């Protein structure tokens, strides 16, 4: 896909959002509205200029293109999806326990095939996280399910 086409789309979408932001900022009280109004107005203007320039660049042949191979796209969304699942699970299972599952699972889904290293890395990393955050820094984090399973506490 051509870079200019993506930029035109992003700039136009951004400009529309920015106009909404400008209207929202105009609703603030006088002293609080001054800077937001100026900034949102300027941002809208910049985005419109960017959109016009990108659209003009579309008329010329050649130019830069954005290439994403299917593998790139798959790995990007895989990591994003597993990260979202990890964030949802962490408060329920505990961070170290979640990482014990998240690191090898993500690595495997992304295409890393050395099973032994996946497991060893996940165990060492989770242990380090537990020691640093719970023992050394003493941060109040959610209870660890793995610890409950192994120790019954």
């Amino acid at each position, binding site marked *: 896909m051509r870079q200019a086409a*993506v930029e035109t789309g992003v700039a136009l979408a951004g400009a529309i959002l920015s106009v909404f932001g400008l209207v929202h900022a105009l609703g603030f009280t006088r002293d*609080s509205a001054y*800077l937001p109004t100026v*900034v949102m107005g300027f941002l809208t203007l910049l985005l419109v200029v960017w959109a016009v320039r990108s659209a003009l660049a579309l008329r010329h042949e050649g130019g830069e293109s954005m290439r994403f191979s299917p593998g790139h796209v798959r790995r*990007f969304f895989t*990591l994003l999806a597993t990260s979202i699942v990890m*964030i949802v699970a*962490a408060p329920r299972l505990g961070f170290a326990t979640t990482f014990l599952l998240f*690191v090898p699972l*993500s690595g495997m889904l992304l295409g890393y095939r050395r099973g032994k290293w996946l497991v060893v890395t996940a165990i060492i990393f989770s242990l380090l996280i537990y020691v640093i955050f719970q023992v050394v820094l003493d941060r109040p984090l959610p209870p660890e399910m793995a610890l409950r399973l192994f120790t019954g506490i």
Partner: protein
Amino acid sequence: MWDSILSALPLLFSPAVLLAMAGGTTIGVLIGALPGLSATMGIAVLIPLTFTMDPLVALGMMAGIYNGAMYGGAIPAILLRIPGTPAGIATVFDGHPMAKKGQGLEAMKIALTSSAIGGSVSALALLFLSPPLAAMALKFGPVEVFWLAIFGLAAISVLLSDAPIKGLISACLGLVIGMVGIDSMTGNERFTFNVMDLMGGIDILVLLTGLYAIPPALTLAQEAMLLSRNSIGSGGRTRSGIGWRRLVPTWCRASVIGVIVGIIPGTGGNIAAMLSWNEARRVAKDKSRFGKGAPEGVAAAECANNADNAASLIPALTLGIPGSSVSAVILGGLLVHGMLPGPDLFTRSAPVTYGFILAMLVTSIMLFVIGRLGARLFINVMYMPPLLLAPIIIALTTIGVYAINNSLFDVWLMLAFGVMGWGMERLKIPLAPAVLAVILGPVAESNLRRAMLIGRHEVSYLFSSTIAIVMVTIIVLTVLVPVIRRLLTHYRGRPSKLAMASDPERARQRFEP
């Protein structure tokens, strides 16, 4: 000043701080050696972890990471022709040809020594230039501080990108993010959309971690670059003998260039290294050696990019104006530990501030020792599989951000900023102006309001002092830089050195053999 330095020394040489500096330097070299990861990312990931630490322990670690990563970037630049950090681009020109000739280990030794020298000179510049500049900042009133903040924003927005419009869009985005929450002067809500978690504003750490730690992780996973042992090699064993004395003039020139470039907001290690490499080539008797494995080329590039390090903190520490993304992140680290940049840093928090400045010096020296002892380990780190590294970075940032306020909302916000940052990088929109705007926006707004109150809402009051007029002139000139650049390119038929320095790809195409 000397009293403050003396009072900082016992703190600096306490076991915890020494350990933090050594650990930070080692981590920094490892981060720099991994292509795709940078000092900014390393410090951004680390800040949440240092939240509960003693300020000097945390700052010592940051100093180590900063100096270490800048050298670490030279390792893949020399051995693989892939700069580990953007500042390593000029190291490729002569470092990799040296490796191809079997002089990889020698090139690494030159890079290490040059980095240590550049870093030390830079730290001394920070030590001696900061206090007078901070004293000068005491004369600044709300008008001058307002224009200073605008200058910082304009410089980084315009100079950092080839397309200034994108830099300005990034700055505006940052200003909007900085305005989210309750207005501290009027108590009114701005851009909160009745979301309770947004009332207190967006934590700078959440933004920093999201923008600087998540995009490299996503890119690592996406590109899944795997290196084989054959592609790296051992660095070669040919020993032609390094003429160290021959490199002294190069180090002197490179250190001066690095320090000057570092002080100018909106520039960075890559520009310092490019200019220094170019200067070394210009003064050389035999210019044809450059680009084919000249030791001076490696020394010039590495010395300058490390000489930029501490110098780039001068405007950040004294005036509160970070000139680069990494100094913005370090500024975030200072804020987390309750240290407000500006003259107060050199009076109220003097022991910790001087301790941090000395830590920049000590870690530069430590870098030399650690680099020599751990050379083989640092080469081996390049085998680290990115597909495993990417989820680890995400996990580390997640728990780090959660631990700041025990807020899951912050974690979601960080992920959202991360995806936004990844998109911005793809669209070549620089991230640094957004981060700077979040820091400088509130400074500019509060001082503008104060100035308007003092000036009874007369706009002319903003131009009432000589310093203000000088600053406005500098801002106008800074904004005109892209126009001047374009005109120069048009008349010369080729891009200027500065334009090439800020665009590594263009520089590589022109200079690489």
